[in-house]
């Protein structure tokens, strides 16, 4: 994989920020978009813009073909059995909420348990808090080991006949931990519990095969994998989706509308009320083409190598703490703090050098409490980052430490 030729395809990277070439290390928040994706979205609006599944006219057919073509790309990308299992949503959050509203509320009752982990993003916590409040079920958490990996002994102990839903992230957006989801799915299925995987950080970074993982739901966002914002995917096993009620009602999702009752379209459209996110889906399709052409195995190897390099270089800085597991158990995220410097101050200092990192709680307040910090800084990498970016980060961090060391 030639990072330089990949960088060429990302126009946004070729700019100066605060007088320095941009070093973008915030891809876990959102990734950049290659020309291929920008052009696909642009071409749709320029040439084919029309509503889908309605028009008899030519543009309507073209738009529908492109939109449904994107669905087929997603199906192949995650190896779903059929396009009926691929529902376009606004993003991971909407995908999880759809399951928490529809499946969870219909299937949970008092005494049942939903189990999640302390490393979840808020979007895989709050929907379950609300679902158990509405049904009288109980929300529980698996325990973490000290290094921020899941305590598998506790996972085995916790999943029982009362467990109805297990929801967990594929890869932690803070610790970078890659969870053994296949093993957890197997444990959950033995007790007839369904498993939802938050793949917001998984789908962009590792090869996802939903049939191999055998999870019941897999949710991800387009914008973290080189696609546009506003588009995401809910994958669900067909037999589960068939039995679920839609959560949004309106145009597009209906079969017959009578005065006092209506019937729904077949899958996947019954979950896609209203005019769908047509350009977003087409852009996601182009992003999948982009990633597939490089190869997800190559992207994974690149991420691993860069992460190992970042962890090694960053540990050279005295007084810098890195949170989370060792490099072989994590994806392209390095969350850290410099002793005595608040992460917002670190991020502001780095920004003056054109280096973009995230600072804050990363939408994971329970995990921040588990780490016993109020906030952290985070550098996250993707396909277009190079060792040069890491070198600039490390020199920026050294300067940051020196600056705040002197002002104190």
């Amino acid at each position, binding site marked *: 994989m030639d990072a330089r030729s990949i960088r060429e395809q990302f126009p946004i990277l070729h700019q100066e920020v605060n007088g320095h070439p941009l070093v973008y290390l915030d891809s876990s928040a959102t990734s950049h978009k290659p020309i291929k994706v920008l052009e696909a979205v642009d071409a749709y609006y320029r040439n084919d813009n029309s509503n889908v599944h309605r028009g008899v006219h030519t543009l309507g057919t073209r738009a529908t073909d492109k939109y449904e073509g994107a669905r087929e790309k997603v199906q192949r990308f995650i190896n779903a059995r059929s396009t009926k299992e691929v529902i376009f949503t606004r993003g991971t959050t909407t995908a999880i909420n759809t399951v928490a509203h529809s499946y969870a509320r219909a299937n949970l009752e008092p005494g049942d348990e939903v189990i999640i982990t302390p490393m979840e993003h808020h979007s895989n916590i709050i929907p379950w808090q609300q679902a158990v409040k509405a049904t009288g079920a109980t929300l529980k958490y698996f325990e973490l080991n000290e290094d921020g990996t899941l305590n598998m002994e506790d996972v085995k102990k916790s999943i029982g006949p009362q467990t109805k839903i297990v929801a967990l992230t594929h890869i932690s957006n803070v610790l970078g931990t890659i969870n053994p989801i296949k093993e957890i799915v197997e444990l959950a299925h033995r007790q007839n519990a369904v498993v939802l995987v938050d793949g917001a950080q998984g789908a962009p970074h590792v090869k996802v095969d939903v049939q191999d993982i055998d999870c019941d739901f897999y949710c991800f966002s387009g914008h973290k994998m080189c696609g546009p914002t506003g588009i995401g995917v809910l994958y669900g096993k067909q037999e589960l989706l068939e039995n679920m009620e839609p959560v949004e009602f309106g145009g597009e999702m209906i079969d017959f509308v009578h005065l006092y009752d209506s019937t729904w379209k077949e899958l996947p459209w019954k979950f896609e009320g209203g005019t769908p996110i047509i350009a977003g889906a087409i852009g996601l399709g182009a992003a999948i083409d982009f990633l597939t052409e490089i190869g997800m195995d190559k992207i994974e190897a690149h991420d691993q190598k860069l992460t190992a390099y970042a962890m090694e270089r960053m540990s050279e800085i005295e007084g810098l703490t890195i949170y989370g597991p060792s490099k072989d158990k994590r994806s392209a995220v390095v969350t850290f703090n410099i002793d005595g410097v608040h992460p*917002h101050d670190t991020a502001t200092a780095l920004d*003056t050098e054109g280096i973009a990192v995230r600072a804050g709680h990363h939408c994971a307040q329970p995990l921040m409490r588990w780490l016993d910090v109020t906030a952290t800084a985070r550098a996250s990498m993707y396909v277009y980052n190079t060792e040069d970016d890491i070198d600039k980060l490390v020199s920026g961090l050294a300067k940051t430490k020196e600056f705040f060391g002197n002002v104190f």
Partner: protein
Amino acid sequence: MSFNDLDTLYRQVIMDHYKHPRNRGKLEEDALVVDMNNPTCGDRIQLQIQVEDGKVKDAKFEGEGCSISMSSASMMTQAIKGKSVEDALRMSQLFSDMMLGKEIDPGSLEMGDVEALQGVAKFPARIKCATLAWKAMEQGVEKN
């Protein structure tokens, strides 16, 4: 921009307030208590104000956050102590204007160290850190 520009943001007096916060702690007597946080970044402050006869008799704060949010809280409590509620609110307005990069004229109001935060206006992502304590104060006296 470079690390030299950081000096305009992190002035010595700001770092001094961060490292040695004034009025940090809890008021023992009955006080107005306001909890406020900045949900986007996790900064959190608990402000306690004692108002008597339309005057801020005492103010203290506790919390966690970056140097800008904590130093601003320290400076704010220092600035409003002994002022009338009306003046405290006027100062808050002046502070907001200052964050927007406007020239301010404090007139007879003694803003003290608060004016050291002027440089924050050049760092838009950090304005909310600086205004957190002032917003808490506004909410507190409005509750009164």
